[in-house]
Protein backbone atom coordinates (compact mmCIF):
# COMPACT_ATOMS: atom_id res chain seq x y z
CA UNK A 1 0.00 0.00 0.00
CA UNK A 2 1.55 3.31 -0.94
CA UNK A 3 1.53 6.18 1.54
CA UNK A 4 1.55 8.82 -1.17
CA UNK A 5 0.63 8.29 -4.79
CA UNK A 6 0.60 10.77 -7.59
CA UNK A 7 -0.64 10.18 -11.04
CA UNK A 8 -0.22 12.24 -14.19
CA UNK A 9 1.05 15.30 -12.30
CA UNK A 10 1.64 18.27 -14.55
CA UNK A 11 2.92 21.51 -13.06
CA UNK A 12 4.23 24.71 -14.59
CA UNK A 13 4.54 28.42 -13.95
CA UNK A 14 2.46 31.02 -15.78
CA UNK A 15 1.96 29.82 -19.32
CA UNK A 16 5.47 28.44 -19.66
CA UNK A 17 6.30 24.87 -20.59
CA UNK A 18 5.50 22.36 -17.84
CA UNK A 19 8.28 21.80 -15.31
CA UNK A 20 6.74 18.51 -14.20
CA UNK A 21 5.05 16.66 -17.02
CA UNK A 22 2.72 13.71 -16.41
CA UNK A 23 4.69 12.40 -13.47
CA UNK A 24 3.83 9.16 -11.66
CA UNK A 25 5.25 8.45 -8.26
CA UNK A 26 4.41 6.00 -5.46
CA UNK A 27 5.96 6.25 -2.02
CA UNK A 28 5.97 3.01 -0.05
CA UNK A 29 4.67 3.23 3.50
CA UNK A 30 7.44 3.82 6.04
CA UNK A 31 10.25 4.16 3.50
CA UNK A 32 12.75 6.96 3.00
CA UNK A 33 12.95 7.88 -0.69
CA UNK A 34 15.63 10.20 -2.08
CA UNK A 35 14.45 12.63 -4.78
CA UNK A 36 17.43 13.48 -6.94
CA UNK A 37 18.07 15.58 -10.00
CA UNK A 38 20.19 18.38 -11.40
CA UNK A 39 19.61 22.03 -10.52
CA UNK A 40 16.34 23.12 -12.07
CA UNK A 41 15.11 19.56 -12.58
CA UNK A 42 11.93 20.40 -10.71
CA UNK A 43 12.42 18.88 -7.25
CA UNK A 44 11.25 21.98 -5.40
CA UNK A 45 8.39 22.44 -7.85
CA UNK A 46 7.23 18.86 -7.27
CA UNK A 47 7.30 19.19 -3.48
CA UNK A 48 5.47 22.52 -3.56
CA UNK A 49 2.86 21.10 -5.91
CA UNK A 50 2.31 18.14 -3.59
CA UNK A 51 1.61 20.56 -0.73
CA UNK A 52 -0.60 22.83 -2.82
CA UNK A 53 1.70 25.86 -2.77
CA UNK A 54 1.94 25.61 -6.57
CA UNK A 55 -1.27 24.72 -8.44
CA UNK A 56 -1.53 21.57 -10.55
CA UNK A 57 -2.31 21.76 -14.23
CA UNK A 58 -3.38 18.14 -14.22
CA UNK A 59 -3.11 14.99 -12.17
CA UNK A 60 -4.15 13.53 -8.87
CA UNK A 61 -2.51 13.20 -5.44
CA UNK A 62 -3.58 10.55 -2.92
CA UNK A 63 -2.40 10.42 0.67
CA UNK A 64 -3.31 6.96 1.88
CA UNK A 65 -6.99 6.88 1.01
CA UNK A 66 -7.47 10.67 0.96
CA UNK A 67 -7.62 12.62 -2.27
CA UNK A 68 -5.58 15.79 -1.67
CA UNK A 69 -5.97 17.18 -5.17
CA UNK A 70 -8.45 19.99 -4.54
CA UNK A 71 -7.44 20.74 -0.94
CA UNK A 72 -5.83 23.88 0.44
CA UNK A 73 -2.29 23.64 1.81
CA UNK A 74 -3.63 23.95 5.36
CA UNK A 75 -5.99 21.03 4.90
CA UNK A 76 -3.31 18.84 3.32
CA UNK A 77 -1.15 19.46 6.37
CA UNK A 78 -4.04 18.51 8.63
CA UNK A 79 -4.58 15.38 6.54
CA UNK A 80 -1.06 14.22 7.38
CA UNK A 81 1.34 15.76 4.88
CA UNK A 82 4.36 17.78 6.02
CA UNK A 83 6.96 19.90 4.24
CA UNK A 84 10.29 21.26 5.38
CA UNK A 85 10.69 23.87 2.67
CA UNK A 86 13.84 24.91 0.85
CA UNK A 87 15.83 27.53 2.72
CA UNK A 88 15.37 28.79 6.23
CA UNK A 89 11.73 28.68 7.16
CA UNK A 90 12.26 29.89 10.71
CA UNK A 91 9.88 32.72 11.56
CA UNK A 92 12.51 35.21 12.67
CA UNK A 93 10.10 37.31 14.75
CA UNK A 94 9.19 34.34 16.95
CA UNK A 95 11.24 32.54 19.57
CA UNK A 96 12.50 28.99 19.14
CA UNK A 97 9.71 27.75 21.38
CA UNK A 98 7.02 29.64 19.47
CA UNK A 99 8.39 28.42 16.14
CA UNK A 100 8.27 24.87 17.41
CA UNK A 101 4.81 25.08 18.97
CA UNK A 102 3.45 26.40 15.70
CA UNK A 103 3.77 22.90 14.24
CA UNK A 104 1.27 21.39 16.65
CA UNK A 105 -1.19 24.25 17.12
CA UNK A 106 -4.00 22.77 15.14
CA UNK A 107 -4.20 19.82 17.54
CA UNK A 108 -7.02 20.36 19.99
CA UNK A 109 -5.76 19.02 23.29
CA UNK A 110 -3.38 21.38 25.11
CA UNK A 111 -1.82 18.46 26.98
CA UNK A 112 -1.05 16.52 23.79
CA UNK A 113 0.44 19.66 22.26
CA UNK A 114 2.75 20.13 25.22
CA UNK A 115 3.87 16.50 25.25
CA UNK A 116 4.72 16.66 21.55
CA UNK A 117 6.81 19.81 22.08
CA UNK A 118 8.76 18.20 24.92
CA UNK A 119 9.37 15.12 22.80
CA UNK A 120 10.97 17.29 20.11
CA UNK A 121 13.19 19.02 22.67
CA UNK A 122 14.32 15.54 23.66
CA UNK A 123 15.24 14.77 20.07
CA UNK A 124 16.97 18.12 19.53
CA UNK A 125 18.81 19.10 22.74
CA UNK A 126 20.44 22.05 20.96
CA UNK A 127 16.99 23.60 20.60
CA UNK A 128 16.05 22.77 24.17
CA UNK A 129 18.87 24.99 25.41
CA UNK A 130 17.61 27.90 23.32
CA UNK A 131 13.87 27.92 23.90
CA UNK A 132 13.58 31.65 24.54
CA UNK A 133 16.05 32.65 21.84
CA UNK A 134 14.58 34.88 19.10
CA UNK A 135 14.53 33.13 15.72
CA UNK A 136 16.62 35.74 13.97
CA UNK A 137 19.69 34.93 16.06
CA UNK A 138 19.82 31.22 15.12
CA UNK A 139 22.52 29.81 12.86
CA UNK A 140 21.66 28.14 9.57
CA UNK A 141 22.03 24.68 11.05
CA UNK A 142 19.88 25.52 14.04
CA UNK A 143 17.21 26.91 11.75
CA UNK A 144 17.20 23.77 9.66
CA UNK A 145 16.91 21.68 12.83
CA UNK A 146 14.04 23.86 14.03
CA UNK A 147 12.24 23.49 10.70
CA UNK A 148 12.58 19.70 10.88
CA UNK A 149 11.46 19.62 14.52
CA UNK A 150 8.42 21.74 13.72
CA UNK A 151 7.46 19.47 10.84
CA UNK A 152 7.91 16.30 12.92
CA UNK A 153 5.90 17.82 15.75
CA UNK A 154 2.79 17.72 13.59
CA UNK A 155 3.27 13.93 13.35
CA UNK A 156 2.76 13.78 9.60
CA UNK A 157 2.28 10.46 7.81
CA UNK A 158 4.35 11.66 4.88
CA UNK A 159 7.13 14.20 5.28
CA UNK A 160 8.64 16.03 2.32
CA UNK A 161 12.05 17.67 2.79
CA UNK A 162 13.60 20.12 0.36
CA UNK A 163 17.40 20.16 0.58
CA UNK A 164 17.78 20.03 4.35
CA UNK A 165 21.57 19.84 3.92
CA UNK A 166 21.77 23.20 2.14
CA UNK A 167 24.48 25.29 3.78
CA UNK A 168 25.15 22.75 6.52
CA UNK A 169 28.52 21.31 7.52
CA UNK A 170 28.84 17.57 6.76
CA UNK A 171 28.60 16.73 10.45
CA UNK A 172 25.40 18.72 10.90
CA UNK A 173 23.93 17.11 7.77
CA UNK A 174 24.76 13.65 9.07
CA UNK A 175 23.14 14.47 12.42
CA UNK A 176 20.00 15.84 10.80
CA UNK A 177 19.60 12.90 8.45
CA UNK A 178 20.32 10.56 11.35
CA UNK A 179 17.41 11.96 13.36
CA UNK A 180 15.23 11.70 10.29
CA UNK A 181 16.15 8.12 9.61
CA UNK A 182 15.75 7.11 13.23
CA UNK A 183 12.32 8.79 13.45
CA UNK A 184 11.18 7.14 10.24
CA UNK A 185 12.24 3.72 11.51
CA UNK A 186 10.62 4.28 14.91
CA UNK A 187 7.32 5.79 13.82
CA UNK A 188 6.76 4.41 10.33
CA UNK A 189 6.96 7.92 8.86
CA UNK A 190 7.21 8.00 5.08
CA UNK A 191 9.86 10.41 3.81
CA UNK A 192 10.58 12.01 0.45
CA UNK A 193 13.96 13.69 0.66
CA UNK A 194 14.97 16.05 -2.15
CA UNK A 195 18.72 16.58 -2.20
CA UNK A 196 21.50 17.98 -4.31
CA UNK A 197 23.84 16.00 -2.16
CA UNK A 198 22.98 12.63 -3.72
CA UNK A 199 25.57 10.61 -1.82
CA UNK A 200 24.32 11.58 1.63
CA UNK A 201 20.66 11.30 0.61
CA UNK A 202 21.17 7.80 -0.80
CA UNK A 203 23.04 6.79 2.34
CA UNK A 204 19.87 7.19 4.44
CA UNK A 205 17.33 6.24 1.78
CA UNK A 206 15.96 2.85 0.80
CA UNK A 207 15.07 4.04 -2.64
CA UNK A 208 16.17 6.75 -5.04
CA UNK A 209 14.10 8.54 -7.65
CA UNK A 210 15.86 10.62 -10.29
CA UNK A 211 13.95 13.50 -11.82
CA UNK A 212 14.86 14.67 -15.29
CA UNK A 213 12.97 16.57 -17.98
CA UNK A 214 9.88 16.71 -15.82
CA UNK A 215 9.53 12.98 -15.32
CA UNK A 216 11.00 10.09 -13.37
CA UNK A 217 14.16 8.99 -15.19
CA UNK A 218 15.12 6.26 -12.72
CA UNK A 219 13.44 4.64 -9.73
CA UNK A 220 15.62 2.05 -8.03
CA UNK A 221 16.86 0.80 -4.68
CA UNK A 222 19.26 3.37 -3.22
CA UNK A 223 22.30 1.11 -3.09
CA UNK A 224 21.85 0.12 -6.71
CA UNK A 225 21.51 3.75 -7.83
CA UNK A 226 24.58 4.81 -5.89
CA UNK A 227 26.57 1.99 -7.45
CA UNK A 228 25.52 2.51 -11.08
CA UNK A 229 28.34 4.44 -12.74
CA UNK A 230 26.29 5.52 -15.78
CA UNK A 231 23.50 6.98 -13.65
CA UNK A 232 25.92 8.56 -11.27
CA UNK A 233 27.64 10.25 -14.14
CA UNK A 234 24.49 11.31 -15.99
CA UNK A 235 22.38 12.61 -13.10
CA UNK A 236 24.01 12.54 -9.75
CA UNK A 237 27.38 14.20 -10.23
CA UNK A 238 29.48 12.05 -7.93
Amino acid at each position, binding site marked *: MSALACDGLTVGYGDGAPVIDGLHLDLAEGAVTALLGANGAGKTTLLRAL*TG*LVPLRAGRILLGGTDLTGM*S*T*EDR*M*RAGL*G*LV*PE*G*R*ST*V*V*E*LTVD*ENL*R*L*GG*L*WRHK*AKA*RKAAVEEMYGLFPALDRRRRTPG*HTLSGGERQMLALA*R*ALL*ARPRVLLLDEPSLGLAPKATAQLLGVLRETAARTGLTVLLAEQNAASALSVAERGVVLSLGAVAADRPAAELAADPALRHAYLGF
Partner: protein
Amino acid sequence: MDRLLFLLAAGLARGAVLALFALSLVIVWRAARVVNFAQAAMAAAAVYAAFHATAATGSYWIGLATGLAAGALLGAAVERGLMRRLPAHAPLPGIIVAIGLVMVLQAGLAIAFGPEHRPMHPPFSQRPFVIGGVPLLSPYDLFTLGAAAAVMAALALLFNRTPLGLRLRAAAFAPETARLAGVRVPRMVALGWALSAAAAALAALLLVPTELGLNPHAVDLLFVNAFAVAVIGGLDSPAGALLAGIGTGLLVSLVTGYASASAAPLAVLALMTLVLLVRPGGLLAAKEARTA
Protein backbone atom coordinates in the same frame (compact mmCIF):
# COMPACT_ATOMS: atom_id res chain seq x y z
CA MET B 1 2.08 73.99 38.56
CA ASP B 2 -1.63 73.24 39.06
CA ARG B 3 -2.18 73.87 35.42
CA LEU B 4 0.67 71.54 34.48
CA LEU B 5 -0.80 68.72 36.58
CA PHE B 6 -4.21 69.27 35.03
CA LEU B 7 -2.78 69.23 31.52
CA LEU B 8 -0.71 66.12 32.17
CA ALA B 9 -3.73 64.29 33.53
CA ALA B 10 -5.86 65.32 30.56
CA GLY B 11 -3.03 64.33 28.23
CA LEU B 12 -2.91 60.87 29.73
CA ALA B 13 -6.57 60.19 28.96
CA ARG B 14 -6.18 61.62 25.47
CA GLY B 15 -3.01 59.59 24.98
CA ALA B 16 -4.72 56.34 25.94
CA VAL B 17 -7.33 56.84 23.20
CA LEU B 18 -4.64 57.80 20.71
CA ALA B 19 -2.59 54.74 21.65
CA LEU B 20 -5.60 52.45 21.24
CA PHE B 21 -6.43 53.81 17.80
CA ALA B 22 -2.76 53.63 16.79
CA LEU B 23 -2.65 50.03 18.05
CA SER B 24 -5.58 49.24 15.78
CA LEU B 25 -3.55 50.54 12.82
CA VAL B 26 -0.57 48.44 13.92
CA ILE B 27 -2.70 45.30 14.16
CA VAL B 28 -4.05 45.64 10.65
CA TRP B 29 -0.62 46.58 9.34
CA ARG B 30 0.85 43.43 10.86
CA ALA B 31 -2.00 41.24 9.63
CA ALA B 32 -2.21 42.55 6.08
CA ARG B 33 0.66 45.00 5.40
CA VAL B 34 -1.91 47.70 4.69
CA VAL B 35 -2.13 51.16 6.22
CA ASN B 36 -5.88 51.26 6.59
CA PHE B 37 -6.82 54.80 5.66
CA ALA B 38 -10.47 53.79 6.00
CA GLN B 39 -10.08 53.11 9.73
CA ALA B 40 -11.67 56.46 10.71
CA ALA B 41 -14.67 56.08 8.43
CA MET B 42 -15.18 52.47 9.56
CA ALA B 43 -14.97 53.57 13.19
CA ALA B 44 -17.46 56.38 12.52
CA ALA B 45 -19.88 53.84 11.05
CA ALA B 46 -19.50 51.70 14.17
CA VAL B 47 -20.18 54.72 16.39
CA TYR B 48 -23.39 55.41 14.41
CA ALA B 49 -24.46 51.85 15.17
CA ALA B 50 -23.76 52.49 18.86
CA PHE B 51 -25.60 55.82 18.74
CA HIS B 52 -28.75 54.23 17.35
CA ALA B 53 -28.59 51.25 19.68
CA THR B 54 -28.36 53.63 22.64
CA ALA B 55 -31.18 55.78 21.27
CA ALA B 56 -33.38 52.70 20.83
CA THR B 57 -32.68 51.10 24.21
CA GLY B 58 -31.66 54.00 26.39
CA SER B 59 -28.58 52.07 27.50
CA TYR B 60 -25.06 53.36 26.95
CA TRP B 61 -23.70 49.86 27.50
CA ILE B 62 -25.87 48.20 24.87
CA GLY B 63 -24.73 50.95 22.52
CA LEU B 64 -21.09 50.29 23.40
CA ALA B 65 -21.43 46.55 22.77
CA THR B 66 -23.27 47.17 19.51
CA GLY B 67 -20.57 49.58 18.36
CA LEU B 68 -17.80 47.08 19.08
CA ALA B 69 -19.65 44.28 17.32
CA ALA B 70 -20.43 46.52 14.34
CA GLY B 71 -16.76 47.51 14.14
CA ALA B 72 -15.58 43.89 14.20
CA LEU B 73 -18.12 42.83 11.57
CA LEU B 74 -17.26 45.75 9.34
CA GLY B 75 -13.55 44.96 9.65
CA ALA B 76 -14.06 41.33 8.67
CA ALA B 77 -16.41 42.36 5.84
CA VAL B 78 -13.91 44.85 4.42
CA GLU B 79 -11.24 42.16 4.42
CA ARG B 80 -13.42 39.43 2.93
CA GLY B 81 -15.22 41.64 0.46
CA LEU B 82 -12.47 43.98 -0.69
CA MET B 83 -8.94 43.55 0.56
CA ARG B 84 -8.71 39.80 -0.03
CA ARG B 85 -9.45 40.32 -3.72
CA LEU B 86 -6.47 42.63 -4.27
CA PRO B 87 -3.17 41.44 -5.68
CA ALA B 88 -0.77 40.50 -2.91
CA HIS B 89 2.76 41.93 -2.61
CA ALA B 90 1.85 45.43 -3.83
CA PRO B 91 0.98 48.13 -1.29
CA LEU B 92 -0.68 50.61 -3.63
CA PRO B 93 -3.96 48.80 -4.46
CA GLY B 94 -4.74 48.41 -0.75
CA ILE B 95 -4.20 52.12 -0.11
CA ILE B 96 -6.29 53.15 -3.10
CA VAL B 97 -9.15 50.85 -2.14
CA ALA B 98 -9.01 52.10 1.46
CA ILE B 99 -9.22 55.72 0.30
CA GLY B 100 -12.12 54.83 -1.98
CA LEU B 101 -13.82 53.15 0.95
CA VAL B 102 -13.43 56.35 3.02
CA MET B 103 -15.35 58.29 0.40
CA VAL B 104 -18.07 55.67 0.03
CA LEU B 105 -18.54 55.21 3.79
CA GLN B 106 -18.50 58.91 4.67
CA ALA B 107 -20.86 59.81 1.84
CA GLY B 108 -23.11 56.90 2.78
CA LEU B 109 -23.18 57.96 6.45
CA ALA B 110 -23.95 61.56 5.48
CA ILE B 111 -26.79 60.45 3.21
CA ALA B 112 -28.23 58.10 5.80
CA PHE B 113 -27.84 60.20 8.92
CA GLY B 114 -27.18 63.76 7.77
CA PRO B 115 -24.02 65.82 8.17
CA GLU B 116 -24.95 67.49 11.49
CA HIS B 117 -23.22 66.79 14.79
CA ARG B 118 -25.28 64.58 17.07
CA PRO B 119 -24.27 64.97 20.68
CA MET B 120 -23.41 61.72 22.47
CA HIS B 121 -23.63 61.52 26.23
CA PRO B 122 -20.89 59.93 28.30
CA PRO B 123 -22.00 57.36 30.88
CA PHE B 124 -20.08 59.15 33.64
CA SER B 125 -19.68 62.76 34.66
CA GLN B 126 -17.13 64.88 32.88
CA ARG B 127 -16.72 67.17 35.85
CA PRO B 128 -13.14 66.69 37.09
CA PHE B 129 -12.32 65.56 40.61
CA VAL B 130 -10.69 68.41 42.49
CA ILE B 131 -7.78 67.26 44.59
CA GLY B 132 -6.04 69.80 46.79
CA GLY B 133 -7.67 72.60 44.83
CA VAL B 134 -6.41 71.21 41.51
CA PRO B 135 -8.98 69.93 39.02
CA LEU B 136 -7.72 66.59 37.70
CA LEU B 137 -9.30 63.73 35.77
CA SER B 138 -13.05 63.40 35.54
CA PRO B 139 -14.84 60.08 36.16
CA TYR B 140 -15.29 59.75 32.40
CA ASP B 141 -11.55 60.34 31.87
CA LEU B 142 -10.87 57.53 34.32
CA PHE B 143 -13.31 55.28 32.50
CA THR B 144 -11.61 56.11 29.20
CA LEU B 145 -8.17 55.40 30.62
CA GLY B 146 -9.31 52.18 32.23
CA ALA B 147 -11.16 50.88 29.18
CA ALA B 148 -8.32 51.67 26.78
CA ALA B 149 -5.72 50.18 29.12
CA ALA B 150 -7.78 47.04 29.73
CA VAL B 151 -8.36 46.43 26.02
CA MET B 152 -4.71 47.03 25.15
CA ALA B 153 -3.64 44.63 27.90
CA ALA B 154 -6.14 42.03 26.71
CA LEU B 155 -4.90 42.34 23.15
CA ALA B 156 -1.29 41.99 24.30
CA LEU B 157 -2.22 38.83 26.21
CA LEU B 158 -4.17 37.45 23.26
CA PHE B 159 -1.33 37.99 20.81
CA ASN B 160 1.56 36.96 23.05
CA ARG B 161 0.18 34.32 25.38
CA THR B 162 -2.44 32.26 23.57
CA PRO B 163 -2.32 29.66 20.80
CA LEU B 164 -4.68 31.83 18.76
CA GLY B 165 -2.31 34.76 19.17
CA LEU B 166 0.60 32.64 17.98
CA ARG B 167 -1.41 31.70 14.91
CA LEU B 168 -2.28 35.34 14.29
CA ARG B 169 1.36 36.39 14.54
CA ALA B 170 2.68 33.54 12.41
CA ALA B 171 0.07 34.24 9.73
CA ALA B 172 1.12 37.90 9.72
CA PHE B 173 4.90 37.38 9.77
CA ALA B 174 5.26 34.33 7.55
CA PRO B 175 2.05 33.28 5.80
CA GLU B 176 3.58 30.41 3.86
CA THR B 177 5.30 28.90 6.88
CA ALA B 178 2.07 29.31 8.82
CA ARG B 179 0.08 27.48 6.14
CA LEU B 180 2.65 24.70 6.18
CA ALA B 181 1.97 24.41 9.91
CA GLY B 182 -1.74 23.98 9.19
CA VAL B 183 -2.75 27.55 10.16
CA ARG B 184 -5.76 28.79 8.20
CA VAL B 185 -4.14 32.05 7.16
CA PRO B 186 -7.11 33.73 5.43
CA ARG B 187 -9.19 33.25 8.57
CA MET B 188 -6.41 34.78 10.68
CA VAL B 189 -6.15 37.81 8.40
CA ALA B 190 -9.91 38.38 8.61
CA LEU B 191 -9.75 38.02 12.39
CA GLY B 192 -6.90 40.56 12.48
CA TRP B 193 -9.08 43.04 10.60
CA ALA B 194 -11.99 42.39 12.92
CA LEU B 195 -9.89 42.92 16.05
CA SER B 196 -8.33 46.02 14.59
CA ALA B 197 -11.63 47.59 13.56
CA ALA B 198 -13.20 46.79 16.94
CA ALA B 199 -10.28 48.45 18.75
CA ALA B 200 -10.61 51.51 16.52
CA ALA B 201 -14.35 51.59 17.16
CA LEU B 202 -13.74 51.53 20.91
CA ALA B 203 -11.26 54.41 20.66
CA ALA B 204 -13.82 56.41 18.66
CA LEU B 205 -16.63 55.50 21.06
CA LEU B 206 -14.53 56.80 23.96
CA LEU B 207 -13.56 60.00 22.15
CA VAL B 208 -16.79 61.21 20.54
CA PRO B 209 -18.71 62.02 23.77
CA THR B 210 -15.92 64.42 24.75
CA GLU B 211 -16.21 66.35 21.50
CA LEU B 212 -18.83 68.22 19.52
CA GLY B 213 -20.73 65.06 18.72
CA LEU B 214 -21.09 62.38 16.11
CA ASN B 215 -20.86 63.15 12.42
CA PRO B 216 -19.30 61.21 9.52
CA HIS B 217 -16.00 63.05 10.02
CA ALA B 218 -15.94 62.86 13.81
CA VAL B 219 -13.02 60.39 13.87
CA ASP B 220 -10.88 61.99 11.14
CA LEU B 221 -8.63 64.03 13.39
CA LEU B 222 -8.13 61.07 15.74
CA PHE B 223 -7.04 59.02 12.73
CA VAL B 224 -4.53 61.64 11.58
CA ASN B 225 -2.95 61.88 15.02
CA ALA B 226 -3.05 58.12 15.57
CA PHE B 227 -1.43 57.53 12.20
CA ALA B 228 1.39 59.87 13.25
CA VAL B 229 1.58 57.98 16.55
CA ALA B 230 1.77 54.60 14.80
CA VAL B 231 4.58 55.87 12.57
CA ILE B 232 6.43 57.40 15.52
CA GLY B 233 6.15 54.12 17.42
CA GLY B 234 7.29 52.03 14.47
CA LEU B 235 4.34 50.79 12.41
CA ASP B 236 5.12 47.20 13.36
CA SER B 237 5.27 47.68 17.11
CA PRO B 238 2.32 47.48 19.55
CA ALA B 239 4.54 48.68 22.41
CA GLY B 240 5.68 51.55 20.21
CA ALA B 241 2.06 52.56 19.61
CA LEU B 242 1.42 52.63 23.36
CA LEU B 243 4.55 54.62 24.16
CA ALA B 244 4.11 57.08 21.32
CA GLY B 245 0.38 57.37 22.01
CA ILE B 246 0.89 58.43 25.62
CA GLY B 247 3.77 60.74 24.66
CA THR B 248 1.81 62.39 21.90
CA GLY B 249 -1.28 62.74 24.09
CA LEU B 250 0.78 64.57 26.70
CA LEU B 251 2.42 66.75 24.04
CA VAL B 252 -0.91 67.72 22.46
CA SER B 253 -2.37 68.52 25.85
CA LEU B 254 0.59 70.69 26.89
CA VAL B 255 0.78 72.55 23.59
CA THR B 256 -2.97 73.12 23.62
CA GLY B 257 -2.85 74.38 27.18
CA TYR B 258 0.21 76.59 27.04
CA ALA B 259 0.09 77.73 23.40
CA SER B 260 -3.07 77.10 21.41
CA ALA B 261 -5.11 74.23 20.07
CA SER B 262 -4.20 75.19 16.53
CA ALA B 263 -0.51 74.64 17.30
CA ALA B 264 -1.10 71.03 18.38
CA PRO B 265 -1.15 69.38 14.92
CA LEU B 266 2.07 71.20 14.11
CA ALA B 267 3.67 69.89 17.29
CA VAL B 268 2.67 66.31 16.39
CA LEU B 269 4.13 66.76 12.94
CA ALA B 270 7.34 68.18 14.40
CA LEU B 271 7.61 65.25 16.82
CA MET B 272 7.10 62.74 14.00
CA THR B 273 9.72 64.45 11.85
CA LEU B 274 12.20 64.54 14.69
CA VAL B 275 11.72 60.87 15.58
CA LEU B 276 11.98 59.78 11.95
CA LEU B 277 15.20 61.77 11.51
CA VAL B 278 16.79 59.98 14.44
CA ARG B 279 15.14 56.58 13.98
CA PRO B 280 13.77 56.17 10.45
CA GLY B 281 11.86 53.01 11.37
CA GLY B 282 10.15 54.60 14.36
CA LEU B 283 10.92 54.35 18.06
CA LEU B 284 10.52 50.60 18.51
CA ALA B 285 10.99 49.36 14.96
CA ALA B 286 12.02 45.71 14.68
CA LYS B 287 15.76 45.39 15.01
CA GLU B 288 16.20 43.12 12.07
CA ALA B 289 14.16 43.40 8.90
CA ARG B 290 12.59 40.23 7.56
CA THR B 291 14.63 38.43 4.99
CA ALA B 292 12.19 35.71 4.01
